[in-house]
């Protein structure tokens, strides 16, 4: 398991005031792996992604990406290193066209001065066209992002991660609000991405998880509860207790 480790989360804690959102979580992810993170609401899934992408700095523990300690690296530098995040609420540039959104995402030249070296349109137009075809937005190229439908915005955001060739893709509920058809298409895109990219997907839709996942990590109250393939996780007594009996557990913790 130690060979080809792409991302290593090593005993991280996230504490807000006195609330512990993530407690001593540790796991390794191989290069090209597709890992699903599941767990009930408030389990710390999104916070874990926040820790990896740099939105939240851990109170304790380390995050090692491609052999480099990035625990205290600011988020924009992590992004340059190849950590790409797709947020739960889609985040695109509403005032820019679809193609402009992609051009911004494709930041081979991320610096102010080098960015003045040429018109943006001339940079990698073929690559943008290819990615637009992949996600089926080729006819929406010159439309402002604010005029896209909910599903299309999700595709656009995925296209933005594709065009920048991020090594590690963090997907927070990528199928939220999608129709069954759109969800299936998202699954196809993910299957195409895995191998080339390392993916961490936070998801509630178990059918979707079954479609895409190799390894599933279950979080509960900020801690890792189980890890393994989808069947072993679903058959785990503890996981079943957490999912089915969470109401009971909450009641128990009240007294």
């Amino acid at each position, binding site marked *: 398991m130690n060979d080809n480790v792409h991302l290593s989360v090593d005993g991280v804690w996230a504490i807000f005031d006195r609330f512990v959102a993530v407690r001593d979580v540790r796991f390794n992810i191989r290069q090209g792996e597709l890992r699903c993170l599941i767990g009930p609401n408030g389990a710390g899934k999104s916070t874990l992604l926040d820790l990896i*992408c740099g939105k939240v700095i851990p109170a304790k523990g380390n995050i090692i990406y491609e052999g480099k300690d990035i625990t205290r690296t600011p*988020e*924009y*530098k992590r*992004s*340059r290193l190849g950590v790409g*995040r797709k947020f739960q609420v889609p*985040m*695109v*540039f*509403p*005032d*820019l066209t679809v193609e*402009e*959104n992609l*051009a*911004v*995402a494709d*930041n081979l*030249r*991320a*610096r*102010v*001065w080098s*960015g*003045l*070296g*040429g*018109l*943006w*349109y001339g*940079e990698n137009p073929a690559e943008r066209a290819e990615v637009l075809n992949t996600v089926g937005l080729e006819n929406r190229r*010159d*439309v*402002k992002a*604010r*005029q896209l439908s909910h599903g299309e915005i999700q595709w656009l955001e995925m296209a*933005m991660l594709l065009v*920048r060739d991020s090594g590690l893709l963090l997907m927070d509920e990528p199928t939220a609000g999608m129709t069954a058809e759109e969800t299936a298409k998202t699954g196809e895109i993910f299957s195409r991405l895995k191998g080339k990219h390392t993916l961490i997907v936070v998801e509630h839709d178990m059918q979707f998880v079954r479609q895409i996942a190799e390894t599933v990590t279950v979080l509960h109250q900020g801690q890792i509860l189980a890890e393994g393939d989808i069947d072993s996780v679903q058959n785990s007594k503890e996981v079943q207790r957490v999912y089915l009996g969470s109401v009971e557990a909450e009641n128990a913790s009240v007294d």
Partner: protein
Amino acid sequence: MTTTGKRTLLGYVAFCGLILVLPFLLRGNSYLLNKSALYMALAMATVALSFTWGYAGILNLGQAVSFGIGAYAMAMHLKLVASAGNPGGLPDFMTWNSVGTLPLVWTPFHSLLVSVILGIGVSVLVSTLIGWFIFRARISGVFVAIITLALLVVVNLVVVTEQGLTAGWNGITNLADVTVGGVDIGSYGFGFYYLVGITLVVVLLLGWYATRTKTGLVLRAINSNTQRARYLGYDVAAYETFAYASSAGVAAIAGMYYAVGNSFASPTFMAVPFSLSIVIWCAVGGRRSLIAAAIGALVVNAIQGALSSDLLDVSNLVIGALFVIIVLFLPEGIVPEIGGAFRRIWTSLVGYSGARPHTPKERMPGQGTSKFTGGQK
């Protein structure tokens, strides 16, 4: 290049051509040439503001700081030239303020070249420092407006109180003409007009280029969704500082021309009403387009100039009313709205706009970006 890109470029060419032929339309009238040159200098400062405000979403209410630094740098040089015959080459106002010898900060301004470099350099340096602090601290939207306004008030106060150095309220007056290589450029002839005009054209063309580079696109992206731009790996503060400082450099050049054209520099060049006027011109023309901002500055100033010769006190009222009407009914500014109207008429006449299927209207109810923060969310 996209169709809209070509159309915009055509607009630039037409505008620049108009600047070049205007002196012949004015039949060389030196008063009007001077006025036009002054308006073009103001247009330059407005174009610079449109770059920061319309593209990068930074509402800089202190644009007049940079403009004033440029104006004073030039005025100091021209005052020294005019005072060459005085005892010790000392400007008259220093004698009145019982300053015996030329202060050290004035000495570099004997040279025109050094004065120009200092005018632009100091302005860019000050903005880079201030921008660095503002944008590193992730201050945005209306707070940037407040800080830049406060900066303007402070700088203005310093200039007014340091009478021995700056001549205080009176400003630096009775300036010499600019001479480059022995040629007197004056401020009422073709020479001065074309100097300002060609600079404005160069600024517009450079601006056209800059807004279409990757950096220009990223500035618009930052304006549209700052957080997203940050996660994509852009050093947002560096981009914002770049926009703020480069705009300051252009404003300083505009200020220099303005001092030459007026033959004086006064604290009103870096006062709050003037600085806010630049914002108004920008909003009237259309802040999201450099050329629209330039047209806004020219149109408003021309109207104001024409009115003030007849109805001195009413002119500000008319301009104020114009501003209110435009903000209420044409929030994108007159130039984009008129352009849109022309396109609609053309489409209805020809039945086809010639462009790719255009999206009907960019503003939707409840989705329009806030007018004064450039869409900070």
